[in-house]
């Protein structure tokens, strides 16, 4: 099957200015997302996952800035297109479910009205049609119809998250980016949300990028996975390749640290995540890597395609 890229990110950097210098939160990230796939972006907290998403969507606010990089979405240069056009693309073609999105609902407006407003605003529908779509979408995400007439505080976190997803997909965007969509939700609700994201791909033929620290969640829904460490992507592959045969020592650590029922021992990765203010020299993982050699301290390993669509940035595979 020929895979057609829907999103191409090239050497994207997102820095934050501070009196101590620049925080290089995202520091040269390149990857592609293909049409009709679920792509996962995984990594520990502080690795730059959320900042990467903000960079892709051009949502970086000062003191943040984008020193270099290119983001091409369906042929459109997102970082350079006029603001007005970008506004049209967001929601209608490119939907974003930010981290903690369920807390972004307006507490004094009923669910249906908020959904209808968003749909009219970005989709150019009349009110009747928008209402119809809103109710249909609530049904799609498994919420009872009464929810439409309720205020956000009457709903649980998981229900609010489903309202957000229902709104995000109402205009049938081609790409949905969800940042930590299951964090802070109960396990049964998490499963529902993960299944819902998978459904976006299978039933609506959307592309989904899911950003999460939860490796088990990725294992359940992703087609491909990109592993992020210290502002960079260190490994990319199909979900089965990466889980069965992780290449980068960091990925290996991350996978062996996943707790699983019945598993005897959960091993953490020794050492601490470095600071974006002062990334380690050479390979950024070298201070925590048991395979580190002198080369790793001095030279930053480039991203290599070790087999088709299988990338790793590590001198062990040089």
């Amino acid at each position: 099957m020929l895979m057609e890229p829907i999103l191409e990110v090239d050497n994207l950097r997102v820095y934050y200015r501070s009196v101590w210098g620049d925080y290089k939160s995202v520091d040269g990230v390149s990857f592609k997302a293909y049409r009709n796939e679920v792509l996962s972006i995984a990594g520990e907290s502080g690795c730059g996952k959320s900042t990467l998403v903000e960079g892709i969507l051009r949502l970086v606010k000062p003191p943040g800035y984008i020193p270099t990089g290119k983001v091409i979405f369906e042929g459109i240069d997102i970082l350079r297109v006029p603001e007005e056009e970008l506004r049209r693309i967001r929601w209608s073609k490119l939907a974003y479910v930010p981290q903690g999105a369920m807390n972004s609902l307006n507490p004094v407006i009923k669910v249906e009205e908020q959904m209808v407003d968003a749909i009219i605003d970005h989709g150019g529908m009349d009110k009747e049609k928008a209402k119809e779509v809103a109710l249909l979408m609530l049904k799609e995400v498994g919420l009872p119809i009464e929810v439409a007439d309720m205020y956000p505080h009457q709903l649980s976190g998981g229900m609010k998250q489903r309202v957000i997803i229902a709104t995000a997909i109402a205009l049938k965007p081609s790409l949905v980016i969800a940042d930590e969509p299951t964090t802070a939700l109960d396990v049964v609700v998490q499963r529902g949300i993960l299944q819902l994201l998978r459904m976006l791909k299978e039933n609506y033929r959307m592309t989904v990028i899911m950003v999460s620290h939860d490796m088990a969640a990725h294992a359940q829904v992703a087609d491909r996975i990109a592993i992020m460490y210290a502002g960079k992507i260190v490994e990319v592959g199909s979900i089965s390749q990466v889980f069965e045969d992780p290449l980068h020592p960091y990925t290996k650590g991350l996978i062996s640290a996943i707790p699983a029922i019945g598993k005897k021992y959960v091993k953490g990765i020794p050492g601490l995540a470095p600071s974006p203010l002062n990334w380690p020299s050479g390979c950024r993982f070298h201070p925590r890597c048991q395979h580190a050699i002198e080369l790793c301290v001095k030279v930053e390993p480039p991203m290599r395609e070790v087999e088709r669509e299988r990338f790793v940035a590590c001198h062990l595979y040089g």
Partner: protein
Amino acid sequence: MDQPLLELRNVSREFKVGGGLGLFSRRIIKAVDAVSFSMPSKPWITALIGESGSGKTTIARMILGLLPPTSGEILYRGRKVSEWIKKNKMEYYREVQPIFQDPYSIYNPFYRVDRVLEVTIKKFKLASNRKEARDLIIKAMEDIGLRPEDLLGRYPHQLSGGERQRFMLTRILLIKPRLIVADEPISMIDVSLRAIFLDHLLSFKEKHGISCLYISHDLHTASYLADNIVILCYGRIVEEGPKNQVIEDPLHPYTKLLISSIPVPDPKRRWTDKIDLTLIESLKKFRVEKGCVFSARCPYVMEKCLSQTPQLKNISPETKIACHLYHSEK
């Protein structure tokens, strides 16, 4: 059977909510509804598992004497917790210690981290002089795997999250209580550091005989840590049993749903069936007046489940279930 370390007998806690105009619009929520369970006197870890709003934090607060039960009794070594606290608070906290969710909140940013431990030693009179106190601190830190020379004399912000939480464990090790009440202790710790934390709880049990009531929403860590598991659903216990039974052969429909919802970290073992999205949550925020608490979401719901509250009963010596599927009333 010898005297249990901790015993909850029919403990309920109600909260009044709402109000606004007039007393009559007030509603009473049963956050905890007739909960009974006990922990043995031998070193033991019980995991109390529940989703958000299941009443697990309320139970923790009641055991720690921070909140009185509306009805029922909480006994620690055979004596009511309220009595312990009234008579000799320090004696109770010498034996029962909390570990909080947020490792940052116990530090005062203006004091060096040493102070947390020094105050503990002073309060519980663990040492007779400064030298002895210092030695105790250093010994405890080394046991936790922290380097005293690196950490002592520093300020809280100079420590990483993991170091701060392990510093908390040092405090526990100084006090050596008999029971730790740990309410979601690892939810703020990075995944890679969680294992280290859990292993310390295990070694506390094995090396120092410290029991733990591990309160969490997370069955993964419970399965790693606990001897037995208690499942809480909307304020009521629905299942209780040895770890392996609850994890491998859950009986209550709610426990079954919980366990089957845990994502397996293996792309080859994906969920094959689709969960019914309309059953993952219920709009009913408040406790049902009668009938089973899980009836609104239960795929096996029967008429009886709506009218009669199922009682928690033994179905084997170690396993208790509250579900009409397993109890045929005569």
